[in-house]
């Protein structure tokens, strides 16, 4: 347990959530800024293949934010600072938003809005099958991310639904791994981080003394239990 300091309490109460939001919007702002620079003929990060740059940047961001979502619970466990759980849902939602932008960019810049072409890709190309499956599984989590939906579903059902983040993260990492040419390190690093984050949960589950009888969880499930999107 961390020492309760008034400053930390103030931060958790007033600053943590808005600052998280700003941090989560920054990558998008960066993309917008690069396009604004390019349109004005100024030096920018887009390089000579702006479509490829945009896909990669949005995809990397989605995957990394997804991993960050999964890192919140272990961080809470390690620091004992539970206010962290209050930013978990918005981080998960940001992962969904960047995933949606990633797919929109692909639909627009590569497929010129052809949905049949997208469907053909999904069926034909394994890495796109995995990526789209991950995105499809994120949809119910995004739709149920409001307080109202938690109440309506009930805490236990909501929590179980949001365990979908585990297969989503695995599919996301596989999407990246099967996309790159050759044997590249970056997807393996993402895979190792995911393995550590999931391994932590297995370890915690194994180490926890099992209650004699199953208890219904109480309270706000978005503030306890597994990561929610």
């Amino acid at each position, binding site marked *: 347990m961390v020492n309760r300091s008034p400053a930390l309490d103030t931060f958790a109460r007033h600053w943590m959530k808005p600052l998280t939001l700003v941090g989560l919007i920054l990558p998008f702002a960066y993309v917008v800024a690069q396009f604004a620079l390019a349109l004005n003929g100024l030096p920018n990060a887009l390089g000579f293949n702006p479509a490829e740059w945009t896909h990669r940047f949005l995809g990397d961001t989605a995957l990394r934010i997804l991993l960050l979502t999964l890192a919140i619970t272990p961080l809470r466990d390690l620091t004992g600072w539970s206010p962290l759980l209050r930013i978990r849902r918005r981080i998960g939602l940001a992962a969904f938003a960047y995933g949606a932008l990633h797919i929109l960019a692909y639909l627009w810049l590569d497929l010129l809005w052809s949905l049949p072409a997208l469907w053909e890709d999904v069926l034909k*190309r*394994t890495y796109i099958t995995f990526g789209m499956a991950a995105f499809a599984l994120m949809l119910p989590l995004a739709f149920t991310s409001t307080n109202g939906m938690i109440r309506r579903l009930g805490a236990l059902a909501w929590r179980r639904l949001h365990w979908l983040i585990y297969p989503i993260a695995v599919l996301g990492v596989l999407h990246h791994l099967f996309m790159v040419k*050759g044997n590249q390190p970056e997807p393996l690093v993402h895979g190792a981080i995911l393995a550590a984050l999931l391994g932590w949960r297995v370890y915690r589950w194994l180490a926890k003394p099992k209650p004699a009888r199953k208890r219904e969880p109480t309270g706000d499930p978005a503030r306890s239990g597994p990561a929610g999107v």
Partner: protein
Amino acid sequence: MEYKRNRTWSALGDEVTPEPIFRDRRRIIAAAGAAGVGLIAGAGAAHAAPTARPVPGAALKATASKYKVADPVASEEAATSYNNFYEFGTNKSDPVRYAGLMKVDPWTVTVEGECEKPGAYAVTDLVDYGKLEERIYRLRCVEAWSMVIPWVGVPMASVIDKLKPTSKAKYVAFETHLDRTSMPGVRFPVLDWPYVEGLRLDEAMNELTLMTVGLYGKALPQQNGAPLRLIVPWKYGFKSIKSVVKIRFTDTQPPTSWNLSNAREYGFYSNVNPEVDHPRWSQASERVLGGGGLSGLISRRKTDMFNGYTKQVEKLYAGMDLAKDY
């Protein structure tokens, strides 16, 4: 904190003579002396001291050729800063950032296998710098983008003629330089280094195959494969091997790096073919890169069979099923 102070007398890293050269100094000095004698005597310089070769970026004299794609040429900056050269990293911007570390002088190309003139050659032994020509080819990358680039070189056939392959030679194998100290990308086994490529001998002898030493009228910069690379314009870009240090004539089909990495995705031939998709993406069209600003976002063209060089190369593949021999 401990730190190293550079005294006025201390040599900076790149001023230190590399150990192999230091150990070899007597032979090098003797060879230089012998070469000098040879020059004075007016002897043929075939295996003597290499004549001076333009450094990367230096202007080259080349005559225009009939090989000229009509579409707009990519900007020189695009062609020299958006590269795949995985020995320097897998990002397109890695080669221009790191390839400058690669020493290209001196450079020796080892020729071996089924030929009458095996041995160690300088680039100037293989390429006649008095006969350079400029050819504007479209480079079609397997990643479904293309750039139109003015290359400078000599027909590969003229190089092969000098090396006199025997009647047993059916293929030519090539190998890229491998140096762990100057190539940050080879620390990770992205591919099984060194990079190797190969062509059938008749493909290598085709009029289009260019032994390339320059682009945009200048000697190749390192990121584009200095000092010597191949350009095979009807094949995907990875067949056009960079920074060649070995040429071997063989009677059997040589291994090639991408085929070893993933045989289902990359065949030995790898001819540009809009009808045969890469398993992970369509090859029917390509992004046209190298225009200014955001043009790369929208510029697309339909990919041509053999990258538009059907007339010159279709006879090479008569009777072959190109969906099978991809």
